[in-house]
């Protein structure tokens, strides 16, 4: 029941953004100082089961490399319609990326997660490099990443 409600809420968020209640969320991704070129990042929302919901931001200039953002590519099918207008430059080693996005209220405190997939040229990809809950309780708390991501902070 909760899931249906949530899905409904998400649908509303997508189809009627102007009418839906939304909140601005700040997401900060800080990278480790690794050796290599700038990292490609996919920042997206999944449900509690890890199923892809929507894309928040893609860092990286060349769409042909987006398939290396493995789980994001699986869930979104890599379709341009999923990320149109949400892309930016890749993030260099040691830098951090802060984005502000409007997230529908229905997604908050409803078991949804913000996830980061990452990839660097000539080096390995990381599925679920970092994952943080979209909860008021977890707001502002940094989560440690396991790959190129040093920490992920979601602030409501």
């Amino acid at each position, binding site marked *: 029941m909760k899931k249906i409600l949530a899905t409904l809420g998400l649908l509303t968020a997508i189809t009627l953004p102007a009418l839906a209640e939304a909140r601005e969320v700040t997401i900060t991704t800080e990278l480790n100082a690794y*050796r*290599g070129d700038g990292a490609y990042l996919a920042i997206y929302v999944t449900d509690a*089961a*890890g199923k892809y919901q929507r894309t928040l931001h893609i860092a990286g200039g060349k769409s*042909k490399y987006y*398939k290396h953002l*493995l789980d994001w*590519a*699986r*869930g979104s*099918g*890599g379709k341009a319609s999923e990320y149109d207008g949400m892309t930016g430059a890749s993030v260099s080693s040691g830098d951090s990326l802060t984005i502000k996005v409007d997230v529908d209220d229905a997604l908050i405190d409803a078991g949804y997660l913000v996830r980061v997939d990452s990839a660097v040229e*000539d*080096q*390995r*990809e*990381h*599925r*679920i490099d970092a994952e943080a809950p979209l909860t008021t309780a977890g707001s502002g708390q940094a989560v440690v990443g*396991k*790959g190129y991501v040093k920490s992920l902070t979601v602030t409501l």
Partner: protein
Amino acid sequence: MLRRLHSLPGLFAALFLIVLATSGAVLSLSPALERAVATVPPSGAASVAEVAARVLAQYPATEQIERLPSGAVLVYFSQDGNPAADIVDPLTGIRISAYEPSPIFAWIKDLHRSFLLDDIGRGAAGILALLMVVMCFSGTFLLAYRAGGWRHLFSPIRGTGSQRLHTQIARYAVLGLLVSSLTGVWMSAIRFELVTEAEEVEALFPEEVSGGTPTPVGTLNALRAVDLQDLHQLVFPFPDDPNDVYSLRTHQGSGYIDQETGELLSYSDYGSAASLQTFIVELHTGEAFWYVGLILGLAVLMVPVLSVTGVLIWWQRRRALPRLVGNTSAQSADTVILVGSETNTTWGFAKTLHDGLTAAGYHVHTAPMNRLEKQYRKARRLFILAATYGDGAAPASATQFLDKLAKVPDSAQLPWAVLGFGDRQFPSFCAFANEVTTVLRQRGWPQLLETELIDRQSAQTFERWAAALGNTINTPLTLRHVPLRRRTTALLLTEREDFGVEVLAPTSILRFHAAKRGGPLAALRRLLGWSGLPSFEAGDLVGILPPGSDIPRFYSLASASREGVLEICVRRQERGVCSSFLCSLQPEQSGQEVRAFIQYNPLFRPARGKQPVILIGAGTGIAPLVGFIRHNRSHKRSQHPMYLYWGGRSPQSDYLYERDLQSWLQDDRLTGLQTAFSRGGDRAYVQDKLKADAVQVRALLEQGGQVLVCGGRNMAADVAKAMDEILAPLSLSVAGLKAAGRYLEDTY
């Protein structure tokens, strides 16, 4: 035009190309190095399922297995929460080494593709690759054009040291360079979206998975069906997620595999366009075939040599031409001066004429005769200043003139005048200038002025001709010709050997070194092997300016500059200004410096290859022949069997190089030696010895042999007559062999 298309991009890009090529060559090692440490089982020896099972046994926390194009197998895993990667043996799953992409290679890669400047640098690298393509093509066309057609593309190369090195290397490297640069251009075009990239078609993520208990990876059917060689990447499912799947990428396509059933849930081929694109990239990086990578690397390693020799060639050619101030372009000039010159002295006269006409308000275009254009749109008159090479042949800068002239339509005819240059002592005085005159008359083009022949650079004759020319074009022309100053090197005699005084043919072998070899840098120079001599090969000529004269006398060189000595043979002529001067020199007498310069004579050389070479000479004509024999060493790939026929006066008195020749017979530099002496008991001339050896001479020529003759004109004529008799049974002639480049003469 073709040459410009070759040299302009080259000059512009030389330094950058050196960086690009050197870094590329280093990078080409990477696939081979990776391959060297990897275990690469042959096709069919291991399936992906087997490898995955072995790896998982060693690395329980395996997240991903990857096969690099080089063949190395990588495993990505987590250790204490930290990501790590190892190269493993696919047959055992055991660790070979940690996988750490070399930071040095990464830096060089960045240098190679973007000069460390990101997008601007990438653009520059792409343009450089395009220039390289242009140079490969223009260079190949240039070589074919120079050699006289595509069939001769691999015939021996004539030219100075750097020219030969440049062409020789380029012939081998051009294919590799083309592959590297074309693929590089392609990659750059894709990067900057000048061509649309074919995207790999991706498999869709499956809608449904079985979600049951995972089966061991080694038994999964879909993985058992894939050979390790086809693997690109296998991503393992998260261990605690039954709904996760294996995702597989091979060389052909991508797909997802169920953890429980082991079936392919979805699969898609990348498509042939995308696969071709990947192949192009892997061809460039050498990842497709590590050995091809090494070959390409070797080819691009030649780029620094090609760049340096190319710039040297350009510079030498530029220096050889006198500076023409305000040379009008061919199509906007009203007056065209064409110059056929062997020694560049004719260029000095051309410059005087050019300057005089320009000062009188004409728009003058001056160029070598070989650069005759099919049409000069605005030209009203054509002046040809032509020297003659050897026995009436066209000089180096005019060898293609008559062929080109034949292709000029009569509709483009111009009123013309010819001025010949030469030395009246020689029978073929101004023969080439006369030939050009005859051809132009036959074509019926209007002749402005009778052809004038200038003897030994006579400034008076030239000034008289110019005055007559001024009358015909209604412009007073008073020209003062000042002979062109040549850049000379001061030489000092090292040692001398004297012969032939008893038979009234005083002859000396003179060896020189550069006068300036002391000074503060002397030790360094010696260490680096710099002799201070200009560069030359045996067979080239040295022009010597006797004191108080600006007219050089030429002598054939018996040594090459790398030996650190300049060696000539001089016969003292009665009343000979230069030979008397040279023969009076004493070793190491400061104040007895000799002013000299090198005149390249690249046409008079043994051809490359292993064909027999018949050397024929008399008197001091032995000098270049001795040089050829001395350098005919067995360690060279092109050692020829060499046969020397030489004529002197008396074996007791003027047998030049006797001891050397005997020792070269011993060490196979010389295969046969026949001497003829015109005095004493067994009187004979060199042509008599040839006739006596007719059977052998014929046999050598039937093997593709080559004849080089050096000596006086009369002797050369006698030898040619004898050779024609010898050749008759083979239906060959001296003229035919000359046309084929197999009968060369250097006469005086």
